[in-house]
């Protein structure tokens, strides 16, 4: 504490910049601070992605709308998905995991604090790179899965945005417009995407390795893997998926880079390459990715439901191992995104079956959550409302997902708004609802302050109403044949009212986010930091220390004898470890 006030030779020593308010954050290797930086940064990107979503919905609100130019629209919808997936949900989970996993398992930090720091800065620069592309008028514009050959260019037709040779630039643009010589994307757009995505990929792999080693090697004495909190379990499964799935994306994007700049022909059909190779590589990353996005939410729900039901989780082992089963199966289903490309029937049968199979462990979890609620003394806190909303919304998203796993159904619905509806029920109804359940639950631990419950409940109802208005009509739009990603549409195709309703829903979601921001500012700016260590009467170890925890997390680490260590401490007359035998 006395660092800044030590006097040397009669004059006050200058504080190193590392001890200043900003410097201490920039140079920190503490898992809690890095976790908070991840969460703040991810939240800023959430706002960017949200504004992009509202731009898309405004453009689509009415037929023949010219609110955005077609070129801008392509960039905005691509960056909406890219931002929400890579810059919001993934780093948000890394942030929660960073903060909570060491606390939950009774460790003082992550296994590799410096690599943790590196991971954060790679993420921050990758996100910055993707976002500043707008300033060059060259944001990625080929959809978040960047299908070849739309992303292709040859070195002959690449535009140099800094070039003064207007004629050459114009010629390149003309060639691009005509799709000549495999030149679809001559601008910097896809180069920004490749650079940004690879920085984020390295960041994710380092984060994944760090979580795995932390969880496998740093658990407190007595905390066997089968006693570990389920959130830590799901972060572990997510980390394995990161370590094993991200390399496919790295390879895919490097091959694209070489095609564009070094004259290779990986995805160029005319020269013997195959655009479908991109789809195989991308989706063998892309499907594990959707479980990277949802598994930590599963983990949060599995922490929150028991606490607010006043019961242990129903079927702990099933919840944990069904997560592992999902992790394994997620590597076997990728071609369900490719039914319409003409796969051999045997491959279609395989991927349709494996996709249906993955619904089983997911359903197991839902049964376990409902079983946890059954007969509990339920407390309807804001966090609990979001958790309950998660179950219902995710169920809808899961069921319409299984529907498109049926090959003939997929033929009809692929690339329509039905798929857009599916992804938003699982990612907004699932991941984002789970995220806010976790945010209201752990916010006191992060900040020492309780978020306003009333504002939280208002936000919950705005979210539930907004998301169903925004995304339910998309089912019908899809069934009526409205293709996704199109710039605008003609009137009287039966899509007009549905699109308008969807846009209204999107803006209601926007209001919900503003309510959360107001809540956050009110809590952090105007409330006293007097949250108790254990405000929810919870069960797990992170609540056994103060809110927020001291730098070293725990003065002493209790030996854990059950899955609910804190319950045991609070109820010595009825410890859980006695029930386990």
């Amino acid at each position, binding site marked *: 504490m006395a660092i800044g006030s030590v006097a040397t030779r009669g004059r006050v020593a200058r504080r190193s910049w590392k001890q200043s308010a900003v410097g201490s954050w920039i140079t920190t290797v503490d898992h809690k601070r890095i976790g908070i930086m991840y969460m703040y940064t991810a939240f800023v990107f959430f706002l960017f992605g949200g504004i992009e979503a509202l731009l898309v919905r405004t453009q689509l609100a009415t037929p023949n709308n010219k609110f955005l130019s077609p070129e801008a629209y392509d960039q905005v919808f691509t960056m909406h998905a890219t931002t929400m997936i890579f810059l919001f949900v993934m780093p948000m989970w890394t942030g929660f995991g960073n903060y909570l996993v060491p606390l939950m398992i009774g460790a003082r930090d992550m296994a590799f604090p410096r690599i943790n720091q590196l991971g954060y800065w790679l993420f921050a620069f990758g996100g910055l790179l993707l976002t500043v592309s707008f300033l060059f008028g060259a944001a990625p514009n080929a959809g978040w899965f960047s299908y070849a050959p739309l992303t292709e260019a040859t070195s002959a037709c690449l535009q140099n945005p800094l070039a003064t040779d207007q004629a050459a630039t114009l010629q390149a643009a003309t060639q691009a417009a005509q799709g000549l010589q495999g030149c679809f994307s001559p601008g910097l757009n896809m180069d920004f995407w490749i650079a940004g995505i690879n920085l984020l990929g390295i960041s994710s792999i380092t984060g994944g390795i760090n979580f795995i080693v932390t969880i496998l090697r740093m658990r407190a004495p007595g905390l066997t893997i089968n006693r570990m909190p389920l959130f830590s379990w799901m972060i572990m499964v997510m980390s394995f998926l990161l370590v094993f799935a991200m390399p496919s994306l790295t390879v895919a994007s490097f091959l694209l880079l070489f095609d564009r700049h070094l004259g290779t022909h990986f995805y160029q059909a005319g020269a*013997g390459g195959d655009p479908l190779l991109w789809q195989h590589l991308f989706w063998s990353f892309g499907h594990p990715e959707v479980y990277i996005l949802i598994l930590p939410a599963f983990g949060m729900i599995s922490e929150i439901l028991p606490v607010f039901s006043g019961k242990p989780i129903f079927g702990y082992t099933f919840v944990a191992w069904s997560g592992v089963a999902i992790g394994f199966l997620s590597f076997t289903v990728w071609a369900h995104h490719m039914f319409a490309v003409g796969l051999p029937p045997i491959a279609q049968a395989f991927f349709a079956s494996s996709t249906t199979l993955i619904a089983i462990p997911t359903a197991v979890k839902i049964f376990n959550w409902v079983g946890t609620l059954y007969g509990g003394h339920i407390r309807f806190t804001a966090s609990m409302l979001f958790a309950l909303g998660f179950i219902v919304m995710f169920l809808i998203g899961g069921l319409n997902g299984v529907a498109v796993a049926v090959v003939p159904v997929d033929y009809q619905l692929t690339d329509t708004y039905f798929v857009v509806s599916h992804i938003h029920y699982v990612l907004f109804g699932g991941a984002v609802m789970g995220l806010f359940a976790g945010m209201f639950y752990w916010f006191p631990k992060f900040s020492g302050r309780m978020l306003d419950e009333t504002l939280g409940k208002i936000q919950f109802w705005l979210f539930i109403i907004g998301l169903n208005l925004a995304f339910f009509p998309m089912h019908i739009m899809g069934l009526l044949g409205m293709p996704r990603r199109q710039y605008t549409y003609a009137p009287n195709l039966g899509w007009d009212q549905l699109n308008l309703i969807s846009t209204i829903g999107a803006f209601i979601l926007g209001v919900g986010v503003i309510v959360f921001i107001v809540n956050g500012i009110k809590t952090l700016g105007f409330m006293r930091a007097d949250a108790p260590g254990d405000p929810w009467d919870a069960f797990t170890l992170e609540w056994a220390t103060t809110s927020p925890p001291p730098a070293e997390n725990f003065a002493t680490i209790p030996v854990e004898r059950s899955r609910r260590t804190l319950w045991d401490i609070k109820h010595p007359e009825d410890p859980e470890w006695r029930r386990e035998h």
Partner: protein
Amino acid sequence: MSAVISPIETHAEGEQHTTRSFGWYGMVFFLASEAIFFANLIASYLYLRIRITGMGASWIPSGVELDKTLPFINTFVLLSSSFPMHFAARAIAKGDKRRLTIFLIMTVILGSLFLSGQAWEYTHANFNPSTGVFGSTFFTLTGFHGAHVTAGVIFLLICFFRSLRGDFSKDRHFAVTAVEMYWHFVDVVWVLLFTVLYLL
């Protein structure tokens, strides 16, 4: 609450003879991720090759010659570099710093020899990355491997200079352990690449 254990004791870092260090586990998962990276490259190669030969075209475009003599020698060079690498790690595990230094520089020399061979092969090939999908895959796969060997040589050189400085001891030499794991990994990848690129 009576039985408390200081986590400082239970989570002691650094080399221990009873348990592996955190760094060792970190390396294992890093290399696992790298293995998936190369598996994706090899799978892409086989996918494109089977697709092209399935359409009745020949994989190697006519007029292109793939020389196999130099790669054979190169394979021998890289595989034999595993031995000094192994002896270097063994030496420092016994605390022999002199042998560590000698074997590290031997590994560096063999690794550099491999890279020189590859550079010669690149400059003397009568095809380039644009010569069909064959050229694309050939230069991409060998190029990624070459980049890994280069990183390994740099890593080895750093270890060599650190060993001259006396950084390593019987109990503290994680960098040597890590570079050994990495080097053996790069060797194994080369055997696979050599098989699919030259022998298949």
